[in-house]
């Protein structure tokens, strides 16, 4: 069979060549007055790039996508169409992206940390290899914060740490990110907080905090901002090694790790946790795309994320941007997927809801 293929492909190649020639001619005739685009830029000129968003319209991922799409269009030169493919906690979109044709016309926004943990845990449906994606870069890293309702009277992490199992921490589904954060921190600090999971969404968790049913919850800094601003919630712990500028008086989990009985182990757990957050929300191509195209799209992505107009909108709509290059994301993903065995087991148990 193998020997028959080239001959079979031969007429196909001819047709392709004819099409390419025709395309070039029509491009040239269409571009008479304007600047001539050659190479990869010429390839993208006037094409349509499908951008897979793995969640429903209206969610945080979708909003990032719709905010960025016009600026990607600007620098790629192609039309960027958003394609919402929700399902299986972001895995449906990731699988579709992984199996998309590698012609460089399909890109996808992915939920980095969930994809890493699902792959490590071997969750059914994780049919991608995250390290094989061609990353264009990262829009934002996950900065997670622990918030408590002000009405609880707790003012610092030390206080709730002491209260231990008296403190109820709300979370959404078993194995979801709010849940994994809560159990991982429980483990690192040996805190014994009572984790109440099964809330339908993070908004229902917040409503329960307002009612005083639970004391606090984990979430992204972006989603916590509003309630903190209004003075109903208080951030008492943040992820990351350095404090964020807008949370300069809130300790990081790493600082707190010094106060545990076994700082080395706590830090080992938190390091792995941090790597997951660093993956954040990257944009990727399917594996094995032509390196020229990857280079071109990485550059366009970089420019789009540094466009002053886009940055102004992001600031106005309270959506943090934390760019990292495609190469950096590739390295972060490799690091995140090769954590020490015992730590990996811990995360697998967390994601499977066995902690």
């Amino acid at each position, binding site marked *: 069979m193998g020997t028959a293929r080239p001959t079979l492909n031969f007429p196909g190649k001819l047709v392709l060549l004819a099409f390419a020639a025709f395309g070039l001619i029509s491009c040239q005739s269409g571009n008479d007055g304007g600047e001539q685009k050659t190479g990869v830029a010429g390839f993208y000129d006037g094409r349509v790039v499908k951008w897979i968003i793995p969640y*429903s*319209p*209206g*969610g945080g991922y*979708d*909003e990032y996508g*719709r*905010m960025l799409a016009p600026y990607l269009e600007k620098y790629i030169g192609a039309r960027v169409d958003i*394609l*919402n*493919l*929700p*399902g*299986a906690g972001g895995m*449906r979109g990731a699988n579709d992206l992984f199996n998309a044709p590698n012609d460089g016309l399909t890109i996808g926004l992915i939920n980095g940390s969930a994809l890493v943990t699902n792959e490590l845990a071997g969750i*059914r*449906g994780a049919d991608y290899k995250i390290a094989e994606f061609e990353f264009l870069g990262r829009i934002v890293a996950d900065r997670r914060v622990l918030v408590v309702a002000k009405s609880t009277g707790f003012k610092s992490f030390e206080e709730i740490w002491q209260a231990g199992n008296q403190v*109820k921490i709300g979370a*959404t*589904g*078993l*194995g*979801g990110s709010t849940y994994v954060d809560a159990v991982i921190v429980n483990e690192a600090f040996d805190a014994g907080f009572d984790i*109440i*999971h*099964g*809330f*339908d*969404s993070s*908004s*229902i968790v*917040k*409503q*329960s905090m*307002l*009612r005083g*049913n*639970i004391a606090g919850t984990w979430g992204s800094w972006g989603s916590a901002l*509003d*309630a903190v601003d*209004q003075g*109903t919630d208080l951030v008492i712990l943040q992820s990351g090694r350095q404090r964020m500028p807008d949370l300069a008086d809130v300790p990081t989990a790493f600082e707190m790790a010094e106060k545990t009985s076994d700082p080395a182990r706590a830090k080992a757990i938190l390091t792995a946790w941090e790597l997951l957050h660093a993956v954040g929300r990257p944009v990727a191509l399917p594996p094995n795309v032509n390196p020229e195209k990857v280079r071109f799209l990485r550059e366009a992505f970089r420019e789009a994320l540094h466009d002053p107009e886009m940055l102004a*909108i992001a600031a*106005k*709509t*309270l959506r943090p941007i934390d760019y990292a290059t495609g190469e950096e994301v590739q390295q972060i993903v490799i690091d995140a997927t090769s954590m020490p065995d015992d730590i990996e087991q811990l995360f697998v148990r967390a994601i*499977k*809801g066995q902690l």
Partner: protein
Amino acid sequence: MGIVEGMISGFLQAISLAVFPYLFVGALFGLVIGVIPGLSGHFAMAMIIPFLYAMEPGPGVAFLLGAHSTVAQGGGLTAILFSTPGTGQNAATLLDGPPMRNNGLGGMAAGAAMTSCFLGATFGAVVLALLLPVLQKVVLFFGPPEIFVLAFLALTFVAVLGKEDITKSLIAALAGLLLAMVGLDNVTNQERFTFGLLELRDGLQLVPVILGLFAVAEMFELWVKGGSLTGTQESSLSAKETQKQIFQGMIESLKRWWLVIRCSAVGTGMGLIPGLGSAPAAFVAYAHAKQTSKSKDTFGKGNIEGVIAPESANNAVEGGALASTVAFGVPGSSSMAIVLGALFVLGQETGPRMVTEHVDVVFIMIFTIIIGNFIGMVGGMFLVNPLTRVTGLRGTVLVPVLIAIVFTGAFAVERSWFDIGVALVFGVIGYLMKELDYSRAALLIGFVLGFAVEKNLYLALQLSGPYFIFDPIPLTLAVITIGFLGYNVWGIIQHHREVKKRAG
């Protein structure tokens, strides 16, 4: 800004030249989206969001909510004229709308539906305005224990829906509860009833299930029986006759103002409860209308009250659903999550500060719902006539076209081919249920409330322990539920005795 000042300012802005054109376009857009089966308010709003980046808050809010608020209006028309719910919240309208059409009263049903939709929306919006000073307390009233008992109460309304044969209704409702369990359980992380299919991991989606149960099943029936949707009618109504009927329908729903108010109250109340949605509200209102009606027997055979009740409830939900969004910036439903996201795009503060500092924007929302629905009502009336012509077409012509539209709607929600299969399978189930006289409404209520009952029971047990039911509010609600159930069981026993007596 005081509330009265805010109200005046909000009203003046809503009718100003800067805002009103957007409101108008949005309302008509929502109406058309509603007419198309499967496309919902979500879809309408998601399409509008990209425009908001360049808009001022007032016009933006009016554009977005205008589109969202008329979707149910359009959906009601499709439900009545084509036996196909335009959106999920119109499913209850199918119980009496299409029978009225078959009796040659399609225009009247449409007029009544659109008028009650407008009245219900107005009621919900007014209640929201009245509650503004105490909004936060009202919203915090409902926690997992309360929602659990309330969902259970709504579930007991199933008993009323199928008084004729309670056994069959219970079978259908319990099957609905089982269907709600399909998918990954977020409490135990176990997959239930997924048969190894990844597509079923997130559970069955509401829209394809509703489209299958009602629309596809109806198509099957039309195909099997032949003829046209207007059934035995010689020809479809004349334009003049339709017009006359629409006005009759409007008058009929105005005459039944007390029913409209009660059903709107049901809708608004259920809108306040996070996560219940408008489909169950419409069914509960329908059940309430049937329960209190003097002519219970004609329900399901073309009683106009069976159209007025669900249509006034399904849009009254909006006012309630907006409450927690406005009060805390916490969305009470997935549509409201989109509204909240849009408010961010428009640079608006949400939560308590919105009520204290930007109360005019809240009132723009309120007036948008009212005015938008009015536009939807008037615009809808122009749609009735041309759509009525279509219902006179032969089934062999109409069925393929409608099936194509319905399947596109099922696909569009999540861009999933699998959902077309879901619609098809539920089409067969719905057809069989109709032929064998099982209540599809009971199945749907079980399906929709199954999530709420199960999740909230688990949370209530986690938060308050096994005795949560003895806390004052849940206990009161539980007593009402038991009382209601007892009253119905008693009614059924009486009914059976009478039947026996007559037979003997």
